[in-house]
């Protein structure tokens, strides 16, 4: 167990190091950092002097070491486009993305699991068939088209919900800007959350359905029924409980996907989050922001994967047996 954890942590560290290297290469070799800082009339000698003071003439390894040192302290330099510290920009926009990701992730999990259980228990019902048909559309439509479709239906035609932005926000004592506390903020959240969560919801639903159908066929479920347990106890206490291990793993991994797909949703709904910041930086080739986002997203993914792996290992005893059997 300990060896497994150590191996995973070492692997994650290597991934982070590679990402940091790419990010640093981007930082250092795209354009001339000096050219971005000084005016045209600066003489060549002054440029060279500045280069030496800033340490740009140092060996590569020394510069890379310094970059990692700064990154660990959250210092990624100043955005070319907005002329503000990159970390400040990201921290300012992170609450918007995290609130959106949290709501859509939660909705996808709750709705996905309930719809999956329902369609598994009532396989031939009218509602089940329609849910499955809708889910097929949800899987095949690209995210941005779902968003546009929802805007067209609920914002343009019906005019029930706002089509862009976060609505009114309240700044909490810690500097966290939340949209949960105002009604316009909550209304603004609905469409982006559906757009972002729909794919994950259908995925979880199909997974739960398939797993439930599998488990419901097993002997111990038949035995539980023979013992005269209530439907509720059989379906939820025995069947659902045993389907949840893979579901939790997939959901955990999908959390990262939600944060990545937030880029698309944030662009469609002009949601002021980290994803929209990143897209604007790619368009404007704002290298410091791109480099920082690269490191941040990799960190989030590595942490999520690590937690899921450990969780999986802890939850499923079969995995431990297989691994030790394979080694001998």
């Amino acid at each position, binding site marked *: 167990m300990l060896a497994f954890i150590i191996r995973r942590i070492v692997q994650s560290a290597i991934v982070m190091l590679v990402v940091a290297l790419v990010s640093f290469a*981007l930082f250092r070799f*795209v354009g001339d950092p000096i050219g971005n800082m000084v005016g045209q009339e600066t003489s060549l000698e002054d440029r060279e002097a500045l280069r030496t003071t800033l340490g740009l003439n140092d060996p590569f390894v020394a510069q890379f070491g310094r970059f990692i040192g700064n990154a660990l302290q959250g210092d990624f330099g100043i955005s070319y486009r907005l002329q503000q510290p990159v970390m400040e920009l990201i921290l300012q926009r992170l609450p918007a993305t995290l609130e959106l990701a949290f709501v859509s992730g939660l909705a996808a999990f709750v709705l996905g699991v309930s719809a999956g259980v329902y369609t598994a228990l009532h396989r031939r019902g009218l509602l089940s068939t329609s849910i499955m048909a809708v889910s097929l559309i949800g899987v095949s439509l690209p*995210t941005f088209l779902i968003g546009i479709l929802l805007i067209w239906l609920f914002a343009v035609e019906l005019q029930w919900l706002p089509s862009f932005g976060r609505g009114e926000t309240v700044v909490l004592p810690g500097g966290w800007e939340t949209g949960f506390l105002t009604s316009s903020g909550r209304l603004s959240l609905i469409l982006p959350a559906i757009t972002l969560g729909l794919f994950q919801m259908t995925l979880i639903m199909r997974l739960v359905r398939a797993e439930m159908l599998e488990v419901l066929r097993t002997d111990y479920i038949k035995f539980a029924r023979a013992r005269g347990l209530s439907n509720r106890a059989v379906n939820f206490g025995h069947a659902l409980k045993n389907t949840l291990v893979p579901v939790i793993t997939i959901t955990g991994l999908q959390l990262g*996907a939600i944060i990545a*797909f937030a*880029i*698309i949703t944030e662009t469609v709904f002009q949601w002021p989050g980290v994803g929209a910041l990143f897209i604007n930086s790619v368009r404007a*080739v704002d290298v410091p922001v791109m480099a920082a986002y690269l490191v941040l997203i990799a960190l989030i993914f590595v942490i999520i994967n690590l937690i899921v792996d450990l969780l999986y290992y802890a939850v499923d005893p079969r995995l431990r047996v297989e691994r030790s059997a394979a080694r001998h």
Partner: protein
Amino acid sequence: MSISKNTGRFYRIWDSDIAYSFRKSPLAIVSGIVALVIVLAAVFAPWIAPTNPYDPSSLNLMDGFTPPMQENAFSGNTFLLGADNQGRDVLSTILYGARISLFVGFSAVLFAMILGISAGLLAGYRGGWVDALLMRIADVQLSFPSILIALLIFGVARGFIPPSQRETMAIWVLIVAIGLSDWVQFARVVRGATMVEKGKEYVQAARVIGVHPLRILLRHILPNVMGPVLVIGTIGLALAIIAEATLSFLGVGVPPTQPSLGTLIRIGQQYLFSGEWWILLFPAITLLALALAVNLLGDWLRDALNPRLR
């Protein structure tokens, strides 16, 4: 033999298992027709399209926002699917846009296929540290969504290309970015199949008589692992088309001077609020039909090539 007259190449294809399973699947036939119509329309766009949307002299700004099948009050022109904000015929922009979408999609899949097959053959045949290294890279890449990888590669590449060449290089950067985000699937499947084929007698026989390893890989092993590669390639094509549309929609794909389907949808979205729905709707339907048809074809191909399902 009674059928000896009909043993031409066409008959052999018509009589094969694949063709039989195609004829027996209505969904595959419909998807095949839809995909074929869109591909042909895109390829022959310069001859089919009523106007050339890239030619500024054919545009008339007075035609802007003409609804479908209605006569424009100023110019008296009518457009089957309406005209966009610049007075371009929507049907023509769709045909030319599908051309770009398909070109990027096909090229990206081809690139991913070549990269993935090479990596897979190498990893499966050589084994050892080459295998371990390639598969670790694949594992790491698989844990990130491919659209994110494509976006990051695109952003990084844009950073390294001088600003004057960004417009002209954009389409190639896009192809490489989407291709690099998608090679893992091919590599994994080819590696697995290669490891199986490697142990078989015909490969051992070839090795014993001293055939060059490269020749063994390309002439003997590769043809035997192509089945699953084609399935992944077809589904990958649908994914690549959607990835291209997504990136272009985000405004980081092909330059606006050469709009693909995704770019057209982005332009159309701006006019949704003022009621000009046709600028958005028709490109969106085309994209959806194309992606869905290719996807369903991929599903059919997977079932048709799987002997266990026969």
